[in-house]
C-alpha cells in the first residue's frame, strides 16, 4: 500500500551546542540541507509547516529562505511538533493542494532548560512547592514499575544507553561522540531511581527538515523513499503521563504510542515484524525499552533477551536508534521527530556510512511526548 506521498529530501543542521548559531538559523540550515538533498530550490516549495518549542516561529524563516508567498503554518505540539508538521505536509500532498511540501522543526535549549510551571499544566501551586514538578520523576516511576512488573533487570538501562553512545560515535552529526561503558553509565549520579544522569538525553540544539512530494514528482528523482503510513494520536483514558496527580481507571495504563504505532502500521499495510530499522523515542534509555513493546516489536518482558542478544544493535535483527537517538543527539524538542525520519530515510537509501544497516527495506519512526502525544511513520524503499 502507499499513501501516494514520498520523501525526496531530508536535512539536518548540526546537533549539539552551537553558541554562534541561533535556533531559527538551525531551522534555515536544515531546510537548505533538505532542499539540496532533494535537488530543489525554496522557490519550488508550495506549502510548509513547522515549529519550535522555544526558539521562535517557523513562518519567520521565509525572511531568510525567500519571500515566495507560500502558505507556511506554525505548529506547536511539544515533542510531536516535527511529527505533526510532517503529518500536515502529508495531508497537503494527499489532498492535492500541493505537490511539494516542507516540514521543519528546530530548537535551541540551554543546559538545564525545561522549567515547567504548575499553573501552565492546570495543577495547584502546592504541586510544585512539594517538589513534584520534576519531569524526570515520571520516567523513573514508569520504568521502575515496568521493570518490576515484567521481571527485567536494571542492567538493561545501562546497556541501551551504552548502545546510544556507541552509535553516536559512528554518526558525524551527533552531539555525544564518545563511547561510554555500561558500567560507567550505571555508576553515574542517580537522578531518579533507577535512572542515572548518563541514561537521560539532555536539552539540546538542532534543526531537521523533510521534503515530501506526490509520487508523481518523486518518480522524477532517483532517491525517493515511500511514506507507507503515518499517524499522530493523543492519549486516551487511563494513560500514564508526566505530571499526573493520578492514573485513572485500573489495570495496565493505556499507551498513546501503541495507538499511534498501530494506526501507522494499519495505514501502511505492514506489520512490526517486517521492519528492518527503527527510531524509537529515547528520552531516557528506559523509554526505548518500553517503546519496543508499546510499538509492537516484542511482547512486554521480552526486551531483556532482545537486548542481551544484540537484536537492537546496528548488526542485529531490528536496529534501533542507529544515529544514537536523543541520548547521543540531545533533545531539541521541535527537531527530534524529524531527525528520526531523517535517519530512517538515510538508512533506507543506504547512505548512513559507518552506521549503515545491511540493506533495510522498511523503516519505522516513533516520537512520544507530553502530555500524551505520539507520531509514527512507516517508510519503505
Amino acid at each position, binding site marked *: 500500500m502507499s499513501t501516494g506521498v514520498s520523501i525526496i529530501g531530508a536535512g539536518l543542521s548540526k546537533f549539539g551546542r552551537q553558541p554562534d548559531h541561533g535556533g531559527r538559523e538551525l531551522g534555515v540550515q536544515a531546510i537548505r540541507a533538505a532542499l539540496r538533498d532533494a535537488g530543489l530550490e525554496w522557490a519550488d516549495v508550495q506549502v510548509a509547516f513547522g515549529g519550535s518549542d522555544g526558539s521562535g516561529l517557523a513562518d519567520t524563516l521565509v525572511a531568510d529562505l525567500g519571500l515566495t508567498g507560500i502558505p507556511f503554518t506554525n505548529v506547536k505540539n511539544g515533542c510531536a511538533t516535527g511529527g505533526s508538521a510532517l503529518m500536515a505536509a502529508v495531508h497537503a500532498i494527499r489532498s492535492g493542494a500541493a505537490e511539494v511540501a516542507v516540514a521543519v522543526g528546530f530548537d535551541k535549549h540551554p543546559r538545564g532548560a525545561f*522549567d515547567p*510551571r*504548575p499553573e501552565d499544566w492546570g495543577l*495547584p*501551586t*502546592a*504541586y*510544585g*512547592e*512539594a*517538589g*513534584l*514538578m*520534576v519531569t524526570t*520523576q515520571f520516567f*523513573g*516511576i*514508569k520504568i*521502575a*514499575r515496568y521493570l*518490576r512488573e515484567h521481571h527485567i533487570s536494571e542492567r538493561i538501562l545501562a546497556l541501551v544507553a551504552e548502545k546510544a553512545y556507541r552509535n553516536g560515535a559512528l554518526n558525524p552529526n551527533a552531539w555525544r561522540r564518545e563511547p561510554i561503558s555500561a558500567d560507567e553509565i550505571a555508576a553515574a*549520579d*542517580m*537522578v*531518579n*531511581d*533507577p*535512572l542515572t544522569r548518563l541514561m537521560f538525553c539532555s536539552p539540546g540544539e538542532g534543526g531537521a527538515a523533510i521534503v515530501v512530494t506526490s509520487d508523481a514528482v518523486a518518480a522524477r528523482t532517483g532517491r525517493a523513499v515511500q511514506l507507507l503510513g503515518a499517524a499522530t494520536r493523543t492519549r486516551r483514558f487511563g494513560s500514564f503521563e508526566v505530571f*499526573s*496527580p*493520578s*492514573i*485513572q*481507571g*485500573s*489495570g495496565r495504563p493505556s499507551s498513546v504510542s501503541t495507538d499511534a504505532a498501530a494506526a501507522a502500521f494499519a495505514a501502511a499495510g505492514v506489520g512490526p515484524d517486517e521492519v528492518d530499522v527503527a527510531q524509537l523515542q529515547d528520552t531516557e534509555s528506559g523509554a526505548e525499552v518500553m517503546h519496543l513493546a508499546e510499538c509492537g516489536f516484542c511482547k512486554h518482558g521480552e526486551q531483556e533477551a532482545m537486548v542481551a542478544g544484540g537484536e537492537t544493535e546496528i548488526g542485529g535483527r531490528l536496529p534501533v536508534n542507529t544515529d544514537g537517538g536523543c541520548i547521543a543527539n540531545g533533545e531539541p524538542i521541535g527537531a527530534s521527530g524529524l531527525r528520526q525520519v531523517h535517519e530512517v530515510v538515510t538508512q533506507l537509501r543506504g547512505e548512513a556510512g559507518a552506521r549503515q544497516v545491511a540493506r533495510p527495506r522498511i523503516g519505522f519512526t516513533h516520537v512520544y511526548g507530553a502530555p500524551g502525544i505520539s507520531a509514527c511513520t512507516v517508510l519503505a524503499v
Partner: protein
Amino acid sequence: MESLELSPHGTVWGFTVQRFAPKAPPYVVPDGGFVPFAVGYVELPEGVRVEAVLDCTDFSELDGDAEVTLVAAEPVPRFATKATR
C-alpha cells in the same frame, strides 16, 4: 461532577527517589534543607492510582506492593509505610 471518597489504604504501584533538590521555585526547600524523598503512585482498592509523597525510614520499604496509609491529603497526598507511622 460527583465526589467519591477513596480508601486511605493502598499499595505502592511504582515509585522513584528524588535524589537532587528540585528547581526552586516552584519547589520550596523545607526547613533544615533538602533531603532525598520518595514519590510514586499508590494503588487504592478502587483501582485508581494516586500520586503521592511516600514517607519511609528506608526506601527499600517501598519495594514489592508495599502497603501504605494516607497521612495527609493536603497540600499534596502523602502516604507512609508501617515503619514510619
